[in-house]
Every structure is written in structure tokens, then in C-alpha cells.
């Protein structure tokens, strides 16, 4: 009997069934799908070009402008629809980068132990200690291409990987002493082989939860940065919509739609991701599964 045959299979299609059965995860997946479609089909769904400023500013919701226009004359609905793209893209890319870093750092530290672990844990602790928001603000000034989306992505990734790295390291510590891993090592498998072919599959749910969490966090971070006015306020995203609503006097003139729409969309997207995560949680913890 080889180590491979004894290895518990965590990548069976069984996972989808479990997810789907979980009502929250199902709802989350559908909602996520809706957003993805919204982003992909934006040019078709949006009534106007989001950068079209030919309308009068500050119009209330009407038949021509479902949510009215912004203070500068953009159509709110079109901006909201195209904003989905920015949020999703930045969220996915930043989340992926942060997860990759956390994976590399956490797994290497946890598996190799010793000096490598000390150094990497030290770096992780450092990254946790420096406060995220001020660091982002400072970095935004330093990273070249000031104002572009890539800067936002880089900044969010740099500040967002540490927590997940800690978790992965902890998980690996518990896994590394399991029998099948020891068997693989005794069989002579190389370090990276053991980490990525033997251990990682068992950590799938943790990695996926981490990734989805990172995406959600990145979406929120982008919104927060945009709201503070960092990055280019002329990109079309839900965060910049809120920024403009705040500076254009939306509260004063009672243009509630400009405020509510981007906020709700942000919340719904993040909720979708969170719900999917509920389901993924259930994958690793049978106690949380729906009966």
C-alpha cells in the first residue's frame, strides 16, 4: 500500500454537493454568479456609458436615470454596474496575490520549522503589527504609478497576507506530524513535493476559505481607500462613488440613492462571498454541515 493510496481524497466532486446543500452557500454562489454576470455583461446592461457627463448633475431617480445622476452629471446606475468590474477585478487579483504570499510564507514556515520558521514568523508578525490603513496610505504615496489600480492592488496585497499566513502555518503544524506525511517523507519525497502534493490538498478548504476571505477583504479595502480619496478618484468603482457622494453634497441635497446604491452593492457582494465561505467551512468541519 503506497502513501498515495492511503491519502484521503479531498478533491472529490463531493464538495460541490455539500456546498450546494448548504442553503447559505447556495444563496452565496448564486448571488456571486449574478455579480459576475453583471460585471461581464456591463456594456450590455448599463443604460449609458459610465463616463458620459452630458447629463445635468444631481438629478433625482427617474425613468431615464434609474438612480439619478451624480453631482458631476454621471448616470448612477451605469456607474454602479461598471463599478462591479473594478471591485471584482481588484478583489480577485489582490486576494489571489495575498493568498499566494500567505500560502508560500505560511506553508514554508510551518513545514520547515527551525530557523526558516523563526525568520518567516518574524516577518509575519511585523506585517501584522504595522496598522493596515495608515500603511496603505503611506505606501500609496510611495508605490509608482500613483493613482492607478495596480497601486491599490499592490498596497492591499502587501498589507493583507499576514493573518492568513499565520493560520496556514498553524494548520500545517498540526498536519505535518500525521502518519501519511511521515510515510511520504520516509519514502523520500522532496520537501516541495510533500508540501504541495501531500499536505496542500488537505488544506484545500482552509486555503479556499482564506482566498474568499481575502477577496472580500480586498473589496472592502479598495472601497475604504477610495472613500478616503486615495488612488484615482476618477476610476469607476463603488468606493469612488461613495467618495463622490460624500464630497458632492449628496447628503445635503438628499440624494439618498447615490449613497445607498454603492454601499448596498458592496455589502451584497461581500455577503455572497461570506456565505460561500460558510459552505466551505462546512466542508472541513462536518459539525457545521446541514443535516
Amino acid at each position, binding site marked *: 500500500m503506497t502513501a498515495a493510496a492511503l491519502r484521503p481524497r479531498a478533491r472529490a466532486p463531493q464538495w460541490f454537493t455539500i456546498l450546494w446543500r448548504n*442553503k*447559505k452557500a447556495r444563496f452565496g454562489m448564486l448571488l456571486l454568479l449574478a455579480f459576475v454576470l453583471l460585471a461581464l455583461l456591463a456594456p450590455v446592461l448599463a443604460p449609458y456609458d459610465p463616463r458620459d457627463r452630458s447629463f445635468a448633475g444631481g438629478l433625482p431617480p427617474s425613468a431615464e436615470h434609474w438612480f439619478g445622476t451624480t453631482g458631476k452629471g454621471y448616470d448612477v446606475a451605469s456607474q454602479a454596474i461598471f463599478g462591479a468590474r473594478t471591485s471584482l477585478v481588484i478583489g480577485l487579483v489582490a486576494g489571489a496575490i495575498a493568498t499566494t504570499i500567505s500560502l508560500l510564507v505560511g506553508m514554508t514556515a510551518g513545514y520547515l520549522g527551525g530557523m526558516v520558521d523563526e525568520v518567516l*514568523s*518574524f516577518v509575519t*508578525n*511585523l506585517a*501584522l*503589527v*504595522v*496598522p493596515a*490603513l*495608515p*500603511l496603505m*496610505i*503611506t*505606501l500609496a*504615496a*510611495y508605490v509608482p504609478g500613483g493613482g492607478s489600480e495596480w497601486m491599490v492592488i499592490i498596497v492591499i496585497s502587501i498589507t493583507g497576507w499576514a493573518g492568513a499566513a499565520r493560520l496556514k502555518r498553524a494548520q500545517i503544524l498540526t498536519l505535518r506530524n500525521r502518519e501519511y506525511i511521515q510515510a511520504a517523507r520516509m519514502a523520500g519525497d522532496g520537501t516541495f513535493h510533500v508540501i504541495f502534493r501531500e499536505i496542500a490538498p488537505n488544506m484545500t478548504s482552509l486555503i479556499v476559505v482564506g482566498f474568499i476571505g481575502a477577496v*472580500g477583504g480586498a473589496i*472592502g479595502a479598495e*472601497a*475604504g481607500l477610495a*472613500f*478616503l480619496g486615495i488612488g484615482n478618484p476618477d476610476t469607476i468603482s463603488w468606493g469612488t462613488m*461613495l467618495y463622490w*457622494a*460624500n464630497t458632492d453634497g449628496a*447628503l*445635503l441635497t438628499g440624494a*439618498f440613492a447615490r*449613497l*445607498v446604491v*454603492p*454601499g448596498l452593492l*458592496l*455589502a*451584497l457582494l*461581500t*455577503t455572497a462571498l*461570506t*456565505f460561500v465561505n*460558510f459552505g466551505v*467551512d462546512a466542508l472541513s*468541519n462536518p*459539525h*457545521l454541515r446541514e*443535516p
Partner: protein
Amino acid sequence: MAYFARRIGFFLLTLWGAVTLNFLIPRLSGGDPAQAILQRIAGKEARVDPAQLAAVRAMLGVPDEPLWRQYLDYLGNMASGNFGVSYTYFPYSVSEVIGEAVPWTIVLVGVTLVLSFAIGTLLGTWVAWRRGTTFDSVLTVTSAFVGTLPFFWIALVLIYVFAITLGWLPPSGGFSGLLEPAPTAAFVADAWPYFILPAAAIMITGPIGWLLGMRNNMVQSLGEDFARFGRAKGLSNRRLAIAYGARVAILPNVTGFALALGGLIGGTVLVEQTFNYPGTGRLLLEAVSNKDYPLMQTIFLFIAVGVLVANLVADVLYGVLDPRARRREAA
């Protein structure tokens, strides 16, 4: 013993690393503090007089020394508590400026943190006990959704409804300006209405993390073997819940609480910025945008120390509360 010694060693090393990082990052981005201050004074569209610039630079005494020399000075100053003079608030010292802001943050964040923790943990326990019921689903789903609402959005909505439309509460600031800030009853009465909206904004999403965490942990611990054994033994459900379930489940939350306390000073930037609340979070934002190195460094330092101390306390607490951790570590 070794467990605690290692922790302390780690703490010191990370502190050094954080302090060094705090020194490097603001300086890496270049830019001229004098310019930042000046434009703030002159106003956005005004021409900045070169004479003013020269004067401000002379006033600040921005150093020409080589970086490593500045670094050594910086380390020495941090260790001796000589935090220098703020650029933005020249000629007032950094200690004085921070000292004024700290009480506001401590009150706002301290109170809401404790309340959030208490409410969240209690609700989480209750929900976990009723898991599987409609009550559980409704509460979990609602709180998950509410937890994803962007904080500043909630703040804006609150301001819009309560301050602008209804006019019940002041929309921003920490106090009215009719009285000087002082630890007197009269001032507290004056400042109290300004506390409500920021606290409410925090309290809407605050307990949720604790709630969901506690729920998940409890579900986990109630499912473990020792709980099953307890049930088999015939323990009452309540005893089971509290002594077996909650007591174990609360451990991560307790360490989480300690960590959150540590992040007190830095974690409030968004709150204070949106409500213009005179705490250290807003001060930090101001320092960063003004390239006020002395002020920025010191606040970063406090945050780093706070978080690291909290980490240390949390680890120690965990070691004390959960004997398994100590044993695990020794293994």
C-alpha cells in the same frame, strides 16, 4: 518556563523590527514636509510663496544628516521617551499632542470594544445553543450581511438620518466648543452627544465578529468528544453549555479580545475620520498626509507596542487558560 521566555524574546525582536520599519517607511516615500504644511495653510489654489517655504524649512530643521545617523538618533529617542516636536503642531511636542488625543480614542474604542465583546459573545453562545433553529439561521444570516456593510457607509447613513434629517445628534466633532476640554462633569455632559453616533456606528458591526466566532467555536466544542461524554453522563444542558462548551469556546475570543485591545489606538482611523472625532486615529491620518515624521513615528510606535504587548498577553493568557497549548508547544 521556556514557553514564556521564548515569547518575550520574540516580542523584543519584533518590536525592534516594527520600530525600524516605522522609521523607514515614511522616509522612503520622499516628499517635503514643509510643502505639505504650507499648502494646508495657504489653501489649495493659492500660490505657495517660496519665502514661506524657506521659512518653514528653517523652522522645522529638517535634518541633513545621513540616514543611518538619523536612525540611531531615532532609536535613542524612542527608548528615552523623547519623541520630539511635531511638524504639524510646531512648536508643541509630540507627547503633548498625542496626550490630548489619547483619552478620546480610549473612551470611544474602549467602551465600544468591551460592549461589542460582551454582547457578541453572549449572543454567540445563545445562538450556538439554539443551532439549527430558525432563530439561528435568521440571526447568523442577518449579522453576516450587516457585517459586510462598509463601515463608513453605515456612518454616513447614521449621519444622514440622525444628524441631518432629524437633527437629534451632532453630525461630527468631539465636543461643542462652548467649554474647554477638561475632566469635569460639565464637559462630559457637553461631549456625550458627540459620542453617540460614532459609538453606534461601531456597535452596529462590532459585536458581529465576536458573535459569529463564538458561535462557530461553541458548535465545535460542543461537538467534541468530551462534550458528548458529558451529555452521556447526564449533565444538564445548561451546565454543558457553560462549563463545557462556552468555557472552551471563549478561549479564542479572549485572545482575540486582547489582540483587539492592542489595536485600539490604530484601529479607529476610519471612525474618527468620518466623524471628525479628535482621537489618535485621526491624528495619525493627519500626520501621514503632512509627512509629520515625529508625530507619525510616535503613534506608529504606540500602536506597535500596543499590538505586541497584547500579543504577548494573549499568548500568555492562552498558555495559562489552556494547558494543552503549553504542552503542545513543549512537544
